[in-house]
């Protein structure tokens, strides 16, 4: 329970108030914003220290740090918002390294004129996501920029985690013969965003898959299986992630198109816009490369977990000096799944 300091004549007006330049100036207005909004929402012992930096306890094990800037537009979309997205994204970046996420730092760039009510929604969503994941936001920063210089709000999150002894996950560890798995359906997040973009609106029950994956990953590590690579296929989709791994590991891949899980409504939305689901962003999915003998065990572990119900094996790693990711199409022919060229744009042709 927080007691409002009498220094603030009026509490923050979340109904009609807007961010203005004073909120970033370091003075009282900013202190009030931090206290009444951020600190209240994130509430934990580290923030309560009230210092510029958080003093953290020592960790047993190698540390992982990851950082991410979030500039998604629209800020609110079916299944989530920029707030929970930023928490999930950073937790996932840390967790795919095999680390248990411990702490998050969050910095905000706010656009002058941004409604405080929307900011509160976003911050509350972040706080809920952090609480649910058991990873506190221990320190942060706020700046305000003039109107027109930010899309409402940009959030940068940095996460730190600790890796257990003996765990080694890295993009260069894929070997010919390995199995390639995914934890569920692809393209949900990107198409949920598309469905809300102003100039491409359509009504479709597509919901972002944004989620913290550290629980699912812990379940995979607990099987003791031979995990080589873990990655979450965010921007650029599955295709980009697989091409990255192929290049890093110096291998090729062969995928089975009919085995790649895509929700029918997502496939239809992609058809509408001329997009390929393999290149559409995901925010709650895992790509797993493992020793061939472990694929069944890992699939079973994923399917037991709420975030891995639709897990599937989608291909194998093979030798290829050119690092091509090839695919047997459901039609029976073959093609490569190449790197993304620029940004995927909806097309008429």
């Amino acid at each position: 329970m927080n007691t409002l300091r009498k220094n603030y004549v009026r509490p923050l007006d979340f109904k009609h108030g807007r961010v203005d330049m004073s909120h970033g100036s370091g003075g009282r207005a900013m202190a009030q914003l931090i206290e009444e909004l951020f600190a209240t929402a994130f509430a934990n012992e580290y923030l309560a220290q009230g210092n510029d930096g958080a003093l953290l306890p020592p960790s047993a094990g190698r540390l992982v740090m990851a950082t991410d800037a979030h500039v998604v537009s629209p800020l609110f979309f079916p299944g989530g918002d920029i707030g929970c997205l930023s928490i999930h994204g950073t937790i996932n970046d840390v967790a795919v390294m095999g680390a248990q996420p411990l702490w998050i730092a969050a910095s905000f760039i706010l656009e002058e004129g941004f409604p405080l009510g929307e900011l509160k929604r976003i911050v509350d969503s972040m706080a809920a996501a952090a609480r649910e994941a058991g990873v506190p936001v221990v320190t942060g920063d706020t700046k305000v920029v003039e109107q027109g210089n930010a899309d409402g709000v940009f959030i940068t999150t940095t996460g730190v985690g600790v890796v257990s002894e003996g765990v080694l996950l890295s993009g260069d560890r894929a070997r010919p013969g390995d199995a390639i798995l995914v934890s569920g359906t692809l393209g949900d997040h990107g198409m949920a965003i598309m469905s809300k973009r102003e100039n491409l609106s359509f009504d479709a029950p597509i919901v972002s898959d944004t989620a913290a994956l550290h629980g699912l990953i812990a379940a995979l590590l607990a099987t003791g299986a031979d995990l080589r690579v873990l990655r979450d296929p965010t921007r650029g989709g599955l295709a980009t992630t697989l091409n990255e791994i192929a290049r890093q590991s110096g291998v090729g891949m062969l995928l089975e198109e009919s085995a790649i899980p895509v929700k029918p409504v997502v496939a239809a939305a992609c058809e509408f816009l001329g997009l390929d689901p393999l290149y559409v962003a995901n925010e709650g999915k895992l790509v797993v490369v493992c020793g061939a003998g472990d694929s069944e065990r890992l699939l079973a572990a994923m399917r037991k977990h709420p975030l891995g119900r639709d897990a599937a094996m989608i291909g194998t790693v093979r030798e290829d000096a050119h690092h091509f990711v090839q695919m047997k199409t459901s039609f029976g022919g073959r093609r490569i799944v190449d790197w993304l060229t620029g940004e995927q744009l909806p097309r008429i042709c």
Partner: protein
Amino acid sequence: MKYVDEFRDGDVAKGLAAAIAVEAKRARNYSFMEFCGGHTHAISRYGVSDLLPVNVRMIHGPGCPVCVLPIGRIDLAIRLALDHGVILTTYGDTLRVPASGGLSLLKAKARGGDIRMVYSTADALKIAREHPQREVVFLAIGFETTTPPTALAILQARQEGLKNFSVLCNHVLTPSAITHILESPEVRQYGTVPLDGFIGPAHVSTVIGSRPYEHFAEEYRKPVVIAGFEPLDVMQAIRMLVRQVNEGRAEVENEFSRAVTRDGNLKAQRLVSEVFELRRSFEWRGLGEVPYSALQIRPRFAEFDAERRYTLTYLPVPDNRACECGAILRGVKKPQDCKIFGTVCTPENPMGSCMVSSEGACAAHYTYGRYKDFVVKMPARREAAA
């Protein structure tokens, strides 16, 4: 998705592949051109070529309106945005096409041009209504499929009395392009085009019908089979073409009968001829000047014609000298035959029309099929050692 998934069935594909292999005479080579970029895309994306016998070869034609859009026309659009301060609305396909001065529409946007992607002409009209104090120009591209929507937009603008809306028209026509491929002066330069028939465009044909191809099949003695968009449609059309060649016929057949009739969409055709008229000649990137192959807005709609509304000077921009698009578009050369394919010229840095959009022959091969170029180089001993 109904009427989509059934036409992509892999098991049926096997049956069709077997049927084609049986009907294609072993002693003969068959070369068919699919005119439409959408067919090129389907063939590459589904790997249809893998299911054809080696003596049946597909040649990728110029049927991609973005590919054949001359750089000079994109420059006009960029100038409108940067110099005249208009809101330039466009379909997504044109945004990344490199134009002069290291610019593209996307890069011009980064320089401050108000360039907005729209899904439909209706969106462009909406923008014009919402910004009455700004000039709005719609960059119109496309074959006969995309022209009726532009015609409707202009008629709608007139009906509403919109004072700030105009169209930069780059609509082109299919039959004239096919004719040009077969009879242009360049044919002498490149040698006879080894084409045995055409796969006719799917959606263009829903608008213009199958009739326009009849004169053309008769005149040049080449069979035309209009095919739907899905890979099974394409394979069936190839089977029908093989059969026509074997039987010595040169007819127009319609595989896409579920959406194409002989007359086409008369209402759409009427609307188009109300708003547009033929240009005497128009430059096609990769093909040069093609007579009576494009449309311009009729004088009575002059206020909606960006070319009349703004003083625009068109400057043609030649392609890289090493670019082989002219030969590739006519089926005389393959992408791999071009010296700059895959090195200087890639989808990120396209030098000519065939690489510009994912449906150009070079782009399709690069994006989906270039692994085949390397197959020969992988030595057999690797398999034994694995």
